[in-house]
Each structure stands twice: as structure tokens, then as C-alpha cells.
């Protein structure tokens, strides 16, 4: 570029107070190739931008340097400005002389000298810049929602109701997630299944929602607007198109005593089973680990009983492919397995006796006890002897907020559901006494604080601010030793039942899924959003959105809100005719490429493929690496590992960067 324009901004007083803008402008005028170098009070303002456009026309500028604030602030602004004047928007560079100069130095001469050098660097860079065109890709207007809990259901319904097709993939035999197993929800004490199941049915019946239940996502290839997903439908051994859901099979199944996953082992189920009566789809699945026919070719009673001929012991997994344009991840959570010694820091809480004493259970297990359709039909019974517990201790923060041997974060919902548990217990066992050991009471939502006060004031729950050190058993009672730090005394309670509020963790396998999707995750496995404040449901992988507990611990209203947000983002994506991607991506000079494929191995997005160069007549010339312009995110790692530097990153080419460095000589 040989006709460069330099525009130095005063930014009011922000720059001009410390940097001598006039001197800097005149120093820049002396750089070879600079045609004009001016300064003005507010470059980003209308008159400022008009000045830039006017200079572009008058001086026939072929590149522009704006010396002002950070490019993160206004690069997009100035790109639009020059585009209006007919100059390619990628021939603009910003010299950051505010955030990284005038605002951090006070010595005027030093700051001015530094500003001049910063501008010099930008001039040298822009001299080497290429005119770039945005990359256009088509869009497949179908979304895939991974996870059929309340968040996934909300997202799927929103997207489908907006008129787009949705593919939902749920790993369990039925959708509904954890919410389907809850009894009543805070703060309204709505029956969880009553509010959820209509929506589950809607999903099952929606003309635009294709539900893959008892399935998992195996691979996702492609890029925003153009994904191909491979979905493994696990073998149900029941043909759901023939099955009528009559129930003869699970009634006749002789193996009735398998611990129920849905009841978190508080109840039993047969080997052929529907997880819960309101399941969607309401069709059974055979547990291949316990079914006698599948293991040793015995039994087979269900097949004989089935009048629809829907049992198929020869069923196998099937892998299907779906083409989609966006992915919404709503994989939910699991509870911290507190009884187990785990790897690394997560040592489990053996001192609470979980797994050792039958009457020490976790919060989801308690939900199943309280639930009207649970293993005890809603009666609160001790797992050990079936008696009604008269004294129940609830322990908060088991695994949460524990830097030493647990997880550092707060699981957000436990204070609320513990309060709820005390109320539900009291409503069922009128002469019972609930005790809660807590660290803090976190009840920040709408009506939440009032809810907790009700539990204490109306339903008489006793709250002790302190932790539990140990739970032991004596005769048939559980001895809970804790502290009441407000009273300043130790507290020992003889409990009939102990409920531990275990920490919320992301569902198992979510990090594998994240890697498939190129989504980042933190050290706990929670998926990473693009920006914690301004982009909470987008990820750094274009076209992949997240919602619900897979992002961080949260309750049902928040999950539903995030799900709708993710659906909205998906709809924005689908509303475009075609997608444009930033062109600052990598390119391989195929003539120079030595085909060592170091770049192919290194690319975090698998955006580089092994390709061949042929003559126009089809004669093989050489192997080469080649960048897929749809997948490349422009990190430049390929450039760094390329030994011959055949790989280049537009916008940050070797020429551009080295020119900047050399200018400092």
C-alpha cells in the first residue's frame, strides 16, 4: 500500500491530554507511503468518520490507520466507515494509543514517543494488508437439541414453534430429565410432573420435532450452518412403532427386582421397563445387562405375551446421520457421588456414611420418596425398615463450596430445595421434626426468600448454622454431630433419616461431547459461554449454544429462560439468507507446502485436510495441506508449526507481523 492515511484522534481529552497529537500526526506524515496524516477531536463521531471518507476520496487512499482507542472498541466502526467510501474494510488498522498509551503513562514526552511508534507499527502493518472478502456459507435450517430435560424441551419447542425442524437426542429411554423425577418444585410447590408432562407430550407429538430417545450423539462434523451429526440409537429390543404401551410385558417379567435408575435406586423395576408411567415415548426398553433372554437365552415371556409382536431380541444399535445447522446443548446435571472415593481432589464424604448406612440418602433420592408416583407412593419411609422417620436431618453444601476435597463452587439450588424438603416432610409427617445444617441461606430468586421463611416460621424447620462433622449409627438411629455456630455450641441429633444436599455436577460424558463440538469447558466440566455477561448462551464454536445446568448450576426458571435464549440465538442464525464468516482465516500456499501435515495434526478445529494437487488433466502433482474455510477459526497455530511457512493467517500474515517488529528497529 503506498497511499496510506493516518488519522490521529484526540478522543476529547483522553488522548490529547497526555499525547501530543499534533506532533504524532506530523511524525507519521514522514513515514514513507503516508499520503496524509491528520488529527481530530473525535474520530468515531459522524464528522470524524466523514473526514476519513473525504480523505479517502480526495487523496485516493488505499489504506487507513486510525490512531485512537482499542480495536476491540471501534475496529468494526471504522471498517464500516471505509467501506462506505469504497475501500476494502480489511485495509484498516487501529493504533491503540489510548488504553495502551495515554491512559497508562503520565510522562508526556514518553507517551508521545510511544504513540508515534505504535502508529508506525500500524502503518507498516497496513502496508502489507490484503483486501479480504467475507466468506459466504449456506445454512441448514434444522437444529439439534442434545438433552431432553426441561431446558432441552423448552428450546426444542421454541425452535419448532418458530417453524424450524428440530432433532432431539436424549440418552435415557424417556425425555423429562431430572425434573420428571421431582415431587414439587419451589417456590410454588407445583407438582413437577404436572407442569412438565404436558410439555413432554407436546414434544413427542410435535410435527417438527424428531425425537431420538435412548440415543447418544457419536460425532459432529462440519461448521456453523452446516453440521452433520452421527447419532447412535441404542438397541431397545422393542420396536416402538409396533408397541402399544399396553404393559403386558413388564407385568409378566419375572425379574422384577432391578434397582431403578429413575428412582435413584430407591425402588425396583423389571428387566423390561418403562422408566416412569408418564414417559415419552411411553414405550419400554429391555435392560440387556439383566434380561435372561439376552444373557442366556432363557425366559422370553414378554415376547410370548406381546400381542403386537413388538419385542425383538435381535435388535442392534443403529447409527443415523442428520444434517443440521445449529446445536443446542442441554445435557443437564448429575449429583456428586458423595460415597465414592474419586480421583484427585474429590475424595467423597465417607464421614457422612452415604452408601454405608441405608438411611443416609441424597436429595434426588429424597425427591423420589416424596413423589406421589415414587417407590413409596409419596409416603416418607426409612429405606432400612420402612418406618416413618420422626426426625430428619438435612445437610447442605455436601461437596459444594469445599476447596479441600470437594468442588469450589456453590450449587445454587440446594438451599431452596432443602427448605422445600423440610416443608414437604412436615406436610406429610405432622409430628416430624426437620433439622437443617447450613453454611449460608441463598434464596435470591423471586419469592425465594419468603419461601425459606415459611419453612422456618410456618413449618417449624430448625436451622443450625454450622457443618456436620460425622454421622454414625447407633441401634437404629443415626447420630449426627454438627455445630451451631450462632449459638456457639456443638449439636448432636438423633435422626431417623439424613438427606444430603449433594453438589450439582455436569452430566457424565459432557466433556467428550464438548470436544466433539469444539466447545470449551472449565475444570469442573461446565461448558464455557462466549462471554459471561453479554453472551451467556453462545459458545466459541459458531452455531453451538448451551442452556441449563450444563452451563452452571441453576434452577428450573433459569434453565427455561436460558433455553428460550438459546432458541432465540438459533433463530437468528436461521433467519439469515446465508452466513458470512470473517475472512481472517488461514491459507496454505499449495506450491510451497511440503505436506508434512504438522498443521493438520495441530489444528484445534480439525479445519485442515490432507489433499492433493492435480494438473487440469487430472495428473497427480503433489500432496498438500488445505484449509477448510468454513471450519477455520483463525487462531494461526498452523502458521507457527509450519516449518516452511507455507501456512499464512490473513490479517496476521508473516509479512504484516514482521513489518511491525522491524519498524521498531
Amino acid at each position, binding site marked *: 500500500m503506498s497511499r496510506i492515511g493516518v488519522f490521529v484522534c484526540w478522543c476529547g481529552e483522553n488522548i490529547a491530554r497526555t499525547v501530543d497529537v499534533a506532533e504524532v500526526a506530523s511524525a507519521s506524515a*514522514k*513515514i*514513507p*507511503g503516508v499520503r496524509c496524516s491528520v488529527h481530530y477531536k473525535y474520530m468515531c463521531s459522524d464528522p470524524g468518520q466523514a473526514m476519513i471518507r473525504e480523505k479517502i476520496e480526495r487523496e485516493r487512499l488505499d489504506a487507513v490507520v486510525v490512531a485512537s482507542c482499542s480495536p476491540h472498541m471501534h475496529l468494526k466502526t471504522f471498517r464500516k466507515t471505509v467501506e462506505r467510501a469504497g475501500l476494502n474494510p480489511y485495509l484498516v488498522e487501529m493504533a491503540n494509543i489510548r488504553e495502551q498509551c495515554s491512559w497508562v503513562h503520565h510522562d508526556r514526552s514518553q507517551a508521545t514517543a510511544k504513540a508515534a511508534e505504535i502508529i508506525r507499527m500500524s502503518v*507498516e502493518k497496513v502496508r502489507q494488508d490484503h483486501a479480504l472478502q467475507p466468506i459466504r456459507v449456506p445454512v441448514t435450517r434444522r437444529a439439534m437439541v442434545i438433552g431432553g430435560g426441561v431446558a432441552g424441551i423448552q428450546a426444542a419447542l421454541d425452535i419448532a414453534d418458530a417453524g424450524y425442524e428440530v432433532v432431539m437426542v436424549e440418552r435415557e429411554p424417556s425425555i423429562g430429565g431430572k425434573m420428571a423425577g421431582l415431587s414439587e418444585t419451589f417456590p410454588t410447590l407445583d407438582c413437577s410432573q404436572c407442569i412438565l408432562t404436558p410439555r413432554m407430550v407436546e414434544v413427542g407429538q410435535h410435527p417438527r420435532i424428531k425425537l431420538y430417545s435412548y440415543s447418544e450423539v457419536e460425532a459432529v462434523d462440519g461448521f456453523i450452518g452446516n453440521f452433520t451429526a452421527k447419532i447412535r440409537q441404542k438397541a431397545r429390543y422393542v420396536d416402538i412403532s409396533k408397541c402399544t404401551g399396553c404393559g403386558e410385558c413388564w407385568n409378566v417379567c419375572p425379574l422384577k427386582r432391578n434397582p431403578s435408575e429413575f428412582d435413584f435406586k430407591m425402588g425396583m423395576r423389571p428387566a423390561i421397563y418403562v422408566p416412569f408411567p408418564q414417559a415419552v415415548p411411553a414405550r419400554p426398553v429391555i435392560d440387556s445387562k439383566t434380561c435372561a433372554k439376552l444373557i442366556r437365552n432363557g425366559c422370553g415371556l414378554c415376547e410370548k405375551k406381546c400381542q403386537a409382536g413388538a419385542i425383538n431380541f435381535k435388535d442392534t444399535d443403529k447409527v443415523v446421520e442428520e444434517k443440521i445447522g445449529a446445536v443446542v446443548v442441554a445435557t443437564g446435571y448429575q449429583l456428586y457421588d458423595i460415597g465414592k472415593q474419586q480421583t484427585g481432589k474429590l475424595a467423597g464424604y465417607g464421614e457422612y456414611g452415604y452408601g454405608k448406612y441405608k438411611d443416609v440418602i441424597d436429595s434426588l433420592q429424597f425427591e423420589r420418596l416424596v413423589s406421589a408416583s415414587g417407590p413409596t407412593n409419596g409416603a416418607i419411609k426409612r429405606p432400612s425398615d420402612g418406618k416413618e422417620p420422626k426426625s430428619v436431618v438435612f445437610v447442605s453444601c455436601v461437596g459444594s463450596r469445599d476447596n479441600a476435597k470437594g468442588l469450589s463452587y456453590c450449587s445454587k439450588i440446594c438451599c431452596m430445595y432443602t427448605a422445600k424438603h423440610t416443608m414437604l416432610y412436615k406436610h406429610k409427617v405432622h409430628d416430624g421434626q426437620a433439622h437443617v445444617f447450613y453454611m449460608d441461606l441463598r434464596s435470591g430468586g423471586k419469592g425465594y426468600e419468603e419461601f425459606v421463611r415459611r419453612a422456618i416460621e410456618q413449618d417449624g424447620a430448625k436451622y443450625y448454622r454450622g457443618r456436620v462433622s460425622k454421622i454414625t449409627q447407633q441401634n437404629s438411629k443415626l447420630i449426627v454431630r454438627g455445630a451451631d455456630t450462632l449459638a456457639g455450641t456443638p449439636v448432636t441429633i438423633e435422626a431417623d433419616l439424613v438427606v444430603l444436599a449433594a453438589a450439582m455436577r455436569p452430566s457424565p460424558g459432557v466433556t467428550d461431547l464438548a470436544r466433539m463440538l469444539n466447545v470449551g469447558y472449565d475444570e469442573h466440566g461446565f461448558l464455557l459461554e462466549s462471554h459471561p455477561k453479554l453472551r451467556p448462551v453462545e459458545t466459541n464454536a459458531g452455531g453451538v449454544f448451551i442452556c441449563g445446568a450444563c452451563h452452571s448450576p441453576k434452577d428450573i426458571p433459569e434453565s427455561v429462560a436460558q433455553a428460550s435464549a438459546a432458541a432465540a440465538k438459533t433463530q437468528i442464525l436461521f433467519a439469515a439468507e446465508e452466513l458470512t464468516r470473517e475472512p481472517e482465516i488461514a491459507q496454505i500456499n499449495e*506450491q510451497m507446502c511440503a505436506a508434512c501435515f504438522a498443521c493438520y495434526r495441530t489444528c484445534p478445529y480439525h479445519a485442515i485436510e490432507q489433499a492433493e494437487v492435480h494438473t487440469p488433466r487430472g495428473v497427480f502433482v503433489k500432496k498438500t495441506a488445505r484449509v477448510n474455510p468454513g471450519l477455520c477459526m483463525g487462531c494461526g497455530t498452523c502458521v507457527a508449526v509450519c516449518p516452511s511457512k507455507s501456512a499464512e493467517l490473513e490479517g496476521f500474515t508473516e509479512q504484516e507481523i514482521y*513489518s511491525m517488529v*522491524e*519498524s521498531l*528497529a
Partner: protein
Amino acid sequence: MSEILTKAGLRELAKEWNAQGKVVAGPAQVKPGLVLYAPLASADDIVWDGFVRAANSAKEAVFPRHELLCRYHLEGNRVELTNGGAEVAAQILLAVRPCDAAALPILDHVFNWDYRDEAYNRRREATTVVTLACASYDESCFCTSVGLGPQAERGSDVMLFDLGDEFEVRCLTDKGRAIFAGKTQTSERTAPLSKGPKPRFSPQHIKQFVDEHFTGPFWQDETLACLGCGACAYNCPTCHCFDIVDEGNSQHGERVRNWDSCQFAQFTLHASGHNPRPDQGSRQRQRVLHKFSIYPEKFGEILCTGCGNCTRNCPEGQGLLTLLTGIEHAL
């Protein structure tokens, strides 16, 4: 009657030259088994025997591997140029071999032909060449094949002949006499004649072959072992190709001249991407052509002194000698 000087005496004389501000270059042992020719820090480092010749050539004295031509500075529309080429101190090349010395007058032609290279000439004028005649040779020596020999005088200002613990000193030019005047003693002893290796090929045959066999499979077939590095050219006393590059940024920098080798793959690469010498065979052919046909036609001298450095330094034992004997066999 001859003039002699003890070896110790020559060392002392060299130290005197140093004290006078002259640069004295000579062969020194850098590592076990490696003798290189370079300006000496101390005359004590010079080695007289136990080796055939230095692994590198003495051409660096007049044609350095890296030379500043000029400096540039741009400001706005103004360009300022400052010449490179500082003052050159007088230099004495001590104990070069006849194959080193003969190269200098051969190089003089190309550096004064259509353009007088003042950087080269300044150094050349400041140089006095004191040649140590050869008492031995190895399988890579072929000076006798190109019209020279172990006691050839071409290019030398002084010839030294090793008599054991003293040298016979024969001053051939005024320059030579100027530095040895009054430093030698007369003696009866004189060096015997030395024959050198039997000629391995005839330069006329080489010229004939390369002129007549420009095309044909010989060059591709016989040069497969060449890896295309610059070890031969850079250690050759007569090779003189150079590359001019600018080192700096858009505002200031230096224009410099560096050695180049016709065996590098990019030697004749055009900006268009076309390379008229795209393979090693064509590059080797060009080298033989240049040294044995074109240069003689233009300047009347073969551009080779038969020192054998190319073969000795070649990582794969090739070098020009292998090719030339191959041509001789082919005829």
C-alpha cells in the same frame, strides 16, 4: 644463492607486521584435523605443516562473505545514502597455497570487467600475497590438471619454500620486496623442484565436452549425489557469485553483498516462479560451463586452480573433481 628466513624469524616478522597495523592472515588449527585460513589473532597460531591446505580459501581477504555496500535512510520523499566500505588496512596473506594465490589474478578479471568493483579493488590493492609452496598433495589435489603446480608463482608477491626449520624466500614483486627487504639472509640452500600430482583430465577435453553435450542425460545421471549446498562454492578460491540484499525496514537499513552458490536450487529462480535451471544436473552443468568454457572464452583463464577444496568439503565426497574425471572417462 638464495634468501632464507627461519620459521621462528618469520613468526617474529609477522608480529612486527601486526604491530605496524597490518592484518596478517594465515592457516591456523581450529580443531583437531581442521585448519582454516583467516586473519590471525597472534602469529603464534600459524601452522606451517601437517596438512595439505586449509579447508577454506583465502578469497575472503578480497571478497568477504558479507560486505556492506551502502546504508539508506528514507524520510518522507527524501532518500539518504551513505556508502559502505570503510578504510581497508594493509593485509598480508601469509602461507597461502599456490592454488589460493593464482585465484586472485583470475578474480581480478571479473571484478574489473564491465564495472570496476571498488570494494574489491581497495582490498586487492592492500593485499600482499606470500605463498607457501606445496611439499605434498592428496587425492583431491588437481592443480596440475589446470596448468598450475605445487610451486606455481601466478598471483604471488613472495614464494616461500619449506626447507625444514627455515624457508627459502623468493620475492617476485615490489610489494613482496617491500615487506621482506632486509629481513632475510643469503644461503646456499634452495628448494628442490616438486612435480605434484599427475594430471587427471585435460581442460580442452572438458570444454569440448561441455560445449558439445549441453543436452543429454550425462548431467542428470552424474550429479545425483549432489545435495545442492554451498560447501564447494564457498570454499573455492575462484567462485565469486554474490547476492545483494537489503536488510532493514521501510525507513532505514543496509544494502549488503553476500556469497551465493550456483548450486542452490533458488540460484536462478525468477520472480515469475520460472527457474531455467530447475534441477541439480543443469546447475552442475552450468558450473562446469562457467569455469571451463565461458570464463576462458571471456578472460582467457580457467576459473579453477585445482585446489580440491570442493571435493574435500563436499559432505558426499563429490565436488568438481568427481564430475571432471567423469567427463574425461566419458570421452
